[in-house]
């Protein structure tokens, strides 16, 4: 309780940003609700609840902005966004490989290697190999034992 009284003049920027994001989200909800045709003759239509939620979001957004201007908030810890970016890239590469028919095993192996790289390991080839072994095991387990259909590329067709 003591630290909040010490510096009341700063601003809680994240709270203000979140507040505006909520207002924007409310706007999207409202616009979509308005665009729905009113096909319902009785009862309440599909637009009512989105409008209520949008109103709630506006209220919460305003409260958040207000609280952001009134208090300093606590500074989050130092963060390094570089590795987070690498994680995102790894995931996007996975998505692209699945999308272009690269198959389950190679895509997963690449995801494994890139993630491991983001966490500071530098043995990319070793990790790629581990990724291949792991994802092959998972592939066999899921497609053979549990008969789930996973995306197939050239490699998976070899596995049968």
């Amino acid at each position, binding site marked *: 309780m003591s630290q909040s009284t010490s510096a009341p003049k700063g601003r809680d920027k994240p709270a203000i940003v979140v507040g505006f994001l909520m207002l924007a989200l409310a706007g999207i909800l409202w616009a979509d609700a308005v665009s729905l045709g009113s096909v319902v003759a*009785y*009862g309440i*239509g599909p637009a009512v609840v989105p409008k209520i939620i949008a109103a709630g979001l506006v209220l*919460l957004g305003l409260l958040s902005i207000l609280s952001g201007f009134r208090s300093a908030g606590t500074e989050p810890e130092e963060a390094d966004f570089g590795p*987070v970016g690498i994680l995102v890239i790894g995931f996007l590469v996975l998505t692209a490989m699945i999308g272009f028919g690269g198959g389950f095993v190679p895509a*997963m192996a690449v995801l494994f290697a890139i993630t491991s790289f983001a966490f500071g390991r530098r043995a990319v080839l070793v990790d790629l190999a581990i990724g291949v072994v792991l994802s092959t095991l*998972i592939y066999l387990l*899921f497609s053979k034992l*549990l008969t789930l259909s996973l995306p197939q590329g050239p490699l998976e067709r070899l596995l049968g």
Partner: protein
Amino acid sequence: MESFYALMSGFTVAMTAANLLYASVGVLLGTAVGVLPGIGPAVTVALLLPITFKLDPSGSLIMFAGIYYGAMYGGSTTSILINTPGESASMATALQGNLMAKSGRAGPALATSAIGSFIAGFIATAGIAFLAPWMVKFAVQFGPEDYFALMVVAFITVSATFGDSPLKGLISLFCGLAFGLIGIDKLTGQSRLTFGLPELLDGVEVTTLAVGLFAIGEAMFVVSRHRVAEEVMQMTGSLWMSKEDWKRSWKPWLRGTMYGFPIGALPAGGAEIPTFLSYSTEKRLSKHPEEWDTIGAIEGVAGPEAANNASVAGTLVPLLSLGLPTSATAAIMLAGFQQFGLNPGPLLFAEKPDLVWGLIASLFIANAMLVVLNLPLVGIWVKLLKIPTPWLYAGILMFAAMGSIATKGSIAELLMLLGFGIIGFLMRRYDYPVAPMVVGLILGPMAESQFRRALQISIGDPLVLVQSPIAATLLGVAFLALIAPYVAGGLNKFKANED
């Protein structure tokens, strides 16, 4: 007595060889994933959901029960051996458990938490068996407006009452409600918020949201902080508890259960409250106050652990009898039911008693299996904790992606998963609770349909929402729960005292 016979017939369902196998596989998998640092029960259940897709409904739900208890148990092992609780409810366990491990008493700490979980789980499951049918009888009289009011109560207690900041919890909830609107409106067939994308017509999957927010968000959070890996405690000391340990544990187990089950079942705000209540009670009653700051007191592990398990089992009462999820884990369990087109609630008890009672019986079995399988296997679980961080998170991301590839396999689904991961990361970084979002996503559409049904019956008169005495009372409770944190100063003060 009626419940007793129903439960016995449930056991005949659960005790078939195949179902016992499902339960044990579930327990082992649940523990193996739940033991990974930073992975709580909610994510474990979400990550392992795809495995149950192809089984028959009762087999799959039984495996689910195993996964669920296994994940709970795995989480407490992690809290004790490395000081990284996977969720706030295991924080109390971590406090004393880790101290005990550091002073060479990891064995008894793990044992008291396992046996305490077993006892709490046993009592709480018995509580479910007797309370749920009673709730069902009560619930059949509920009209849509009463259900709606009940859901409003759940919304408020999950998001506002017990969090650090009610505003942040409500923001998280309302974002979840907004996500819940995406897709085809069930009553009119119109598509909402799909922006012309056919992939969005089915709406947002609860598992996608949960895995994105929890698993991927957590990975991003950890990598952004360069966290130095916490030291994994050696499993030292005998696994067996001494006579003294038993003597000091059994009362905390029972007291913890008494805190946990009612608070979980009511639903009054998740597992965090009872664990901290139990922790402070045990600290006050302890005959060995000197141990709490030095070598760790066994009461401080036994009580909160039992409270945690009992309250999580308690959340199954509203889930099974009303179809009302009141925690992130329960929300994912509900998604597990829905994948088979099953909707928990009074109807399910009437239509598929075998399935419901088989599931409840499996909770007993899974709970017993935990003690039998997991205590002897603790060496293996400890080894899992030693997986280097890069491989650990690489594996978690693989599993996270796998789930959504196996269910839908669409690019849109994977991108949504990534988007939720980024949202989860930012929420964690700026201290927004994620559970309300998950509950909002699954409960929002249900609340909407009850709301519209009520207004349809009343031909648009909104007064119907408060005219039923049940609904009016519940909405009053919701209002009180909303203003309570401002009046009482909230849990913050209580928590601050505890640190």
